[in-house]
């Protein structure tokens, strides 16, 4: 056998091994040959959604709706977080877990609430913070809190490094992940300066009766082992028309969380940017977050 024939045969063989077995159910073939989400037309999206809904129905014995709502025109989402008000109670963390079907075990949480000691170095050095605080009541005296989640950067470094383009920034500014296109290399996690991306090291598990059945393909639909996920500003809620506020905004007991359209001068996010003292986390990295921390006091 000469070199050329060997390579040909080897390539065919390897290709054959990688393909799903002949007796696999049709849906496995369909999933294997699924197109890139951004290149799908409406019909193809509908087919994919139908297949996913069937899969979920079999797995969870319950109908889970998967939406593919497109971005709304003339909308760029922005978020505000009032550090003068946040008390570090972590209600947002679990409103997010509940709304977005994060795995309960292994545990995944999109929002990390950092506790700082007053007078301590912060913002430029998050290493000094503590996320494992657990006092009887919060706010603990002489401490303050800063929740961190995906900052929905205008120049997202995570998107730049993805070798399969499984993550991208949508026209409405939300950075999304196609879990079916993600190969789990975790380059994006290394690139993100905010530790906003989480990886499914194991099979994600959620008790069936706790699943939120209103889902979006690019958001809170059930995830798979080996894929990366992150905050999407509750894409399944905010992309409705009219769009609901994200779950973390509605649960905050001190009203510290603000959300709106950056292109609408009347929106609370625009007014607060224009009237309050505002900063963006790690601004010097030029990631241009659309997540604005502010001080109302």
């Amino acid at each position, binding site marked *: 056998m000469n070199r050329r024939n060997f390579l040909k045969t080897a390539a065919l063989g390897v290709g054959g091994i990688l393909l799903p077995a002949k007796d696999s159910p049709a849906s496995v073939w369909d999933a294997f040959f699924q197109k890139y989400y951004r290149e799908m037309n409406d019909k193809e999206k509908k087919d994919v959604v139908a297949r996913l809904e069937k899969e979920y129905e079999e797995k969870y014995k319950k109908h889970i709706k998967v939406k593919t709502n497109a971005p709304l025109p003339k909308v760029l989402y922005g978020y505000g977080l009032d550090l003068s008000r946040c008390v570090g109670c972590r209600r947002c963390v*679990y409103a997010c877990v509940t709304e977005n079907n994060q795995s*309960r075990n292994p545990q995944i949480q999109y929002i990390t609430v950092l506790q700082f000691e007053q007078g301590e170095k912060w913002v430029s050095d998050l290493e000094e913070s503590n996320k494992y*605080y657990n006092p009887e009541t*919060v706010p603990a005296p002489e401490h303050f809190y800063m929740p961190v989640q995906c900052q929905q950067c205008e120049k997202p470094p995570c998107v730049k490094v993805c070798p399969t383009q499984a993550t991208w920034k949508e026209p409405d500014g939300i950075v999304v992940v196609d879990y079916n296109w993600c190969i789990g290399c975790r380059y994006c996690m290394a690139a993100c300066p905010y530790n906003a991306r989480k990886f499914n090291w194991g099979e994600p598990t959620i008790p069936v009766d706790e699943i939120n059945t209103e889902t979006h393909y690019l958001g809170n639909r059930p995830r798979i082992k080996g894929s990366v996920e992150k905050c999407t500003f509750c894409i399944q809620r905010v992309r409705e*028309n009219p769009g609901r506020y994200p779950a973390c*905004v509605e649960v905050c*007991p001190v009203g510290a969380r603000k959300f*709106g359209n950056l292109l*609408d001068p009347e929106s*609370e996010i625009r007014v607060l940017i224009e009237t309050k003292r505002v900063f963006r986390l790690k601004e010097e990295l030029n990631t241009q977050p659309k997540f604005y921390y502010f001080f109302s006091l």
Partner: protein
Amino acid sequence: MAGKLVYFLLLVVVMVAMPVYSEAQDNTTTMDNLTENDIPKFVTTKPQFTEGIFPCSNCHASMTPNRQRRELSFHTEIQLNHAKRQRWCLDCHDADNRNVLKLANGDHVTFEESYNLCGQCHGNIFRDWKTGIHGKRIGYWNGDKTYYLCVNCHNPHSPHFKPLKPLPMPAHPQDVTKVKSTTSIEVDGRKLYIPVYEK
């Protein structure tokens, strides 16, 4: 000649622009330049009353108002901790109609519109509340919103926030698979699932 023409054209431009400009001015009624009678009504959540206490006239109708500033022998559960030295009950509650609140100018407002009362002193907070920066709004970011009343979060008699019990801290990286189960709690009418860790 050319100079005159330019002046004439300028005059025309100004004359055409004037009414357009003034019209534009008239149409912009921001919240801050509304007259007092025009304070917009906000869709709000309901004020929380102690069970069975409202309408106040149930008891007060048959009582003669005592306008003397004093320690009350009733309503003793109310601890006034809100500028106590400058204020007492009848500065905000109306002696003649207990079912409404009283503004500094003597006008009445309902309990559902109590933000007008709070806004008398807390003007800057009121301004932020109207635009959604202070306080909490739920509903639709590009549609109808429900405002939380000041009193839905702050006890009007003792407005400072009470400390809260924090929800469970995240698992340490080596323990992310040691979540025993989840349990549900209710926060502000919403069901949240929180982890139960192994001891």
